[in-house]
């Protein structure tokens, strides 16, 4: 909650201190980071912290928060990378317009991401889930004047939003099965859930949500396109945090849904396919950020695969890999941004020899790159070792998977060589701008992350050891004890690590040879899921256009005909059974006034339908309106009368204004269509009259009238019942109505302005 307020306040601060805003902004995530670390001893002791704020208790939807090993890890990653990114962005975003908005969005994102991982309530988690999607949309489309940005933002929103809908359906199914909205309430009901006939549907839907969010194959295409966003965004959302939301969900649900063949095998296969395919796709990329994006995809695939393996060792590898990846990939993205900033290009074909101009950036990039490649003694090495060990431990499949993992990691090494190391060496080429060392604010963040990666590798026990068994126990059911060490001695796993490095070098050499051949080649569109997306979008637009042509043909008369006929038919078909006898017509006690008014109405209606002049028709319409108002007064409804008068007055004014622009009054309708309209009007009139008669004769007693009459003064503190209902008892309805009004006004305004601009009246 506080997070939203802080991010809303960001622009005011930004305007006041544009120079060193980064330093102010960074205090917020850092503060959160340290307050989370203060929970460390308690989490390490196996405690699970909870806090609940009631939100919609009647539906079981509460803002309940849960801090266990899993959410703790994610919270630390989010705040730590957040701090680095905020600081970095304070300087980096200066040359973008509307930088203040950027901080609003990214603050919003960080808060909702934290909410996502901390929520214990599924519904609340889903709300935060969608909020991250929306802030991601805003951030990808940050340079909204660029066509490509808008397109990518839309793509990301549609893909993750579609997955979000699937997830919602899955979560509702889960709720239907278990009857609880709390994660912690789901855990004990695992048996019930797994044996339910709805289990496969719920599982598939939840997985769809997670796969789209975490860009698993075949939904991976939005992530590389999302690199249109400013670099801090790519570093934060699209490598370190948001894309891991899906992974988080899978890990969280592993308790509840896991253990079945459906769950484990799907995750295993999808993860492995993503891991290898996306690494292969990176082969012919030359853009720094896209290269990194494909490597992120590959890592996400690996993480999914490890949940799929699901053994104790695999979950351990999952966490180490997760932490390691967040540390090095965040760094590398920020470094890529620095390079772009300093050299004016992100093309790996152009960049080279930057090391001399930017020694500190180079050192940072080296550390992160080595971690990514899995070189001793960085944390990435431990991650990869554990990964291989967990695959080798498997009984079946192990041989294929290990080959896939080695190839994918080899390709990752290649990507690192191309993106993280190559730009700093070799000869300097002609660049769009003269490279220079980045300012301190842009160095500090990535450097801290990189050094942390080194420290975590050197002293794994201190940084992760105590926590890891708790982490795993929040994903697997039972508690485990782990040994985590940097050096395991010469064994199979170490050999595989060296093999991976070797593969990477080979791939790198092959890439240099092959790249010219691959250049300009395109993969057949049928094989690219992104073309499926395009086709689906085009198809949807076609359907929408067709539907609009049929349903919204722009003729108001048709709309009214359809609406009236539908209403009458539906009402008659429902009510026909319940009222058999013709209602008795109450004895009429007609006064002189009523006769006069009714005859005025009748005359004006006659004038209205026969007149050949618009002005006359409008005035006649006004007369009927005012007469109706008088009837309201006679029957003691001054509120209605007052409103009717005001509406009629303004209505006539509006009509007069519109009159100018209408074409000359001509008789559009043929006699036949007039007869048809008259028939419809008569049917509707008779129907309404009957309805009123039934209502009056039936003496409806719903209790509402008595309730409102009785409660108005003591509870609503007002004697005007109608108004008390409007602003107090049913205020939410009124709120909805006035929102619709506001939207309608915007619509009218837009329509008028567009027509005027187009010149067609």
């Amino acid at each position: 909650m506080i997070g939203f307020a802080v991010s809303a306040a960001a622009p005011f601060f930004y305007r006041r201190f544009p120079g060193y805003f980064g330093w102010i902004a960074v205090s917020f995530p850092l503060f959160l980071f340290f307050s989370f670390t203060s929970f460390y001893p308690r989490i390490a002791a196996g405690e699970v912290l909870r806090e609940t704020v009631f939100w919609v208790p009647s539906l079981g939807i509460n803002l309940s928060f849960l801090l266990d090993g899993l959410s703790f890890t994610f919270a630390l990653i989010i705040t730590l990378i957040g701090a680095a990114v905020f600081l970095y962005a304070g300087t980096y975003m200066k040359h973008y317009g509307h930088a203040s908005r950027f901080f609003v969005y990214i603050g919003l994102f960080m808060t909702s991401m934290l909410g996502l991982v901390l929520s214990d309530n599924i519904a609340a988690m889903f709300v935060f889930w969608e909020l991250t999607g929306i802030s991601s949309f805003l951030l990808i489309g940050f340079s909204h004047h660029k066509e490509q940005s808008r397109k990518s933002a839309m793509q990301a929103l549609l893909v993750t939003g579609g997955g979000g809908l699937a997830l919602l359906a899955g979560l509702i199914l889960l709720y239907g099965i278990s009857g609880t909205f709390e994660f912690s309430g789901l855990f004990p009901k695992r048996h019930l859930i797994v044996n339910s006939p709805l289990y496969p549907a719920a599982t598939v839907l939840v997985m769809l949500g997670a796969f789209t969010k975490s860009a698993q194959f075949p939904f991976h295409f939005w992530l590389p396109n999302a690199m249109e966003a400013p670099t801090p965004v790519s570093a934060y959302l699209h490598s370190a945090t948001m894309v891991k939301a899906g992974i988080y969900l899978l890990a969280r649900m592993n308790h509840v849904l896991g253990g079945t063949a459906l769950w484990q095998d799907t995750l295993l296969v999808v993860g492995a396919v993503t891991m290898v395919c996306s690494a292969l796709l990176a082969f012919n990329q030359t853009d720094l950020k896209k290269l990194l994006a494909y490597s992120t995809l590959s890592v996400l695939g690996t993480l999914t695969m490890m949940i799929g393996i699901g053994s104790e060792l695999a979950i351990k590898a999952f966490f180490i890999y997760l932490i390691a990846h967040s540390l090095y990939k965040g760094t590398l993205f920020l470094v890529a941004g620095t390079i772009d900033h300093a050299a004016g290009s992100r093309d790996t074909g152009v960049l080279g020899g930057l090391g001399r101009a930017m020694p500190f950036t180079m050192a940072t990039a080296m550390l992160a790159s080595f971690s990514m490649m899995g070189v001793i003694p960085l944390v990435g090495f431990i991650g990869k070792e554990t990964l291989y060990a967990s695959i080798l431990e498997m009984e079946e499949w192990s041989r294929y998977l290990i080959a896939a993992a080695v190839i994918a990691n080899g390709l990752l090494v290649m990507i690192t060589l191309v993106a993280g190391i190559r730009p700093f060496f070799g000869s300097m080429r002609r660049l769009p701008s003269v490279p220079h060392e980045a300012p301190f604010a842009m160095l500090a963040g990535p450097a801290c992350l990189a050094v942390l990666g080194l420290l975590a590798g050197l002293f794994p026990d201190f940084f992760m050891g105590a926590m890891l068994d708790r982490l795993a126990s929040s994903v697997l059911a039972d508690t485990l004890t782990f040994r985590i060490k940097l050096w395991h001695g010469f064994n199979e796993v170490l050999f595989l690590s060296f093999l991976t490095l070797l593969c990477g070098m080979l791939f790198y050499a092959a890439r240099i040879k092959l790249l010219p051949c691959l250049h300009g080649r395109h993969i057949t569109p049928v094989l690219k899921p992104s073309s499926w997306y395009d086709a689906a979008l085009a198809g949807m637009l076609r359907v929408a256009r067709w539907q609009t042509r049929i349903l919204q043909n722009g003729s108001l008369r048709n709309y009214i005909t359809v609406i009236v006929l539908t209403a009458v038919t539906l009402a008659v078909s429902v009510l026909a059974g319940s009222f058999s006898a013709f209602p008795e017509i109450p004895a009429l006690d007609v006064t002189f006034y009523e006769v006069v008014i009714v005859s005025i109405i009748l005359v004006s209606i006659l004038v209205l339908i026969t007149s050949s002049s618009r002005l006359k028709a409008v005035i006649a319409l006004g007369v009927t309106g005012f007469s109706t108002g008088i009837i309201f007064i006679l029957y003691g409804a001054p509120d209605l009368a007052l409103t009717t008068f005001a509406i009629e007055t303004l209505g006539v004014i509006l009509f007069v204004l519109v009159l100018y622009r209408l074409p000359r009054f001509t008789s559009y309708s043929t006699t036949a269509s007039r007869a048809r309209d008259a028939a419809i009007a008569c049917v509707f009139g008779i129907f309404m009259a009957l309805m009123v008669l039934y209502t009056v004769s039936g003496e409806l007693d719903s209790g509402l009238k008595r309730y409102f009459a009785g409660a108005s003064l003591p509870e609503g503190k007002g004697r005007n019942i109608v108004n008390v209902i409007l602003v107090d008892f049913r205020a939410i309805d009124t709120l909805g109505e006035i929102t619709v009004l506001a939207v309608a006004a915007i619509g009218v305004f837009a329509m008028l302005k567009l027509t005027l601009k187009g010149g067609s009246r």
Partner: protein
Amino acid sequence: MYSIILATASRYLLLLLQMFSLFLLFRGHNEPGGGFVGGLVAAAAYALYFIANGIAEAEKLLQIDPFYLIAAGLLLAVSSTMPSLAAGMNVMTGIWFDTGTALFGKVGTPLLFDTGVYFLVLGVTLKIIFSLAEGDLQ
């Protein structure tokens, strides 16, 4: 078509009608009236002024774009639901401060809500009238 009599009269009428609309708004809780009617009457007041003096004058008189009125009204209505939340009650529970103020009648969040409705209705009506009228000038 400019009529001096109407133009002069409309100035005083505008004030009177606006006072009347506020009167309607405040008494709405006990007597016929309320934010919706009040807003309509206020809009009618401006519409009269516009008929007498032309659209440019009317817009100058209002000084701000009616969109701001719409936004302000919506914001007011929504924010009136917040105090109850802060007080730990269900959203939109009415809170009354003093049920006997001389000028306003009764003061409380429902009044705030009604004021929001008032501004929104005023804004919506004026926006539509002004956009239509502007179109005629071009």
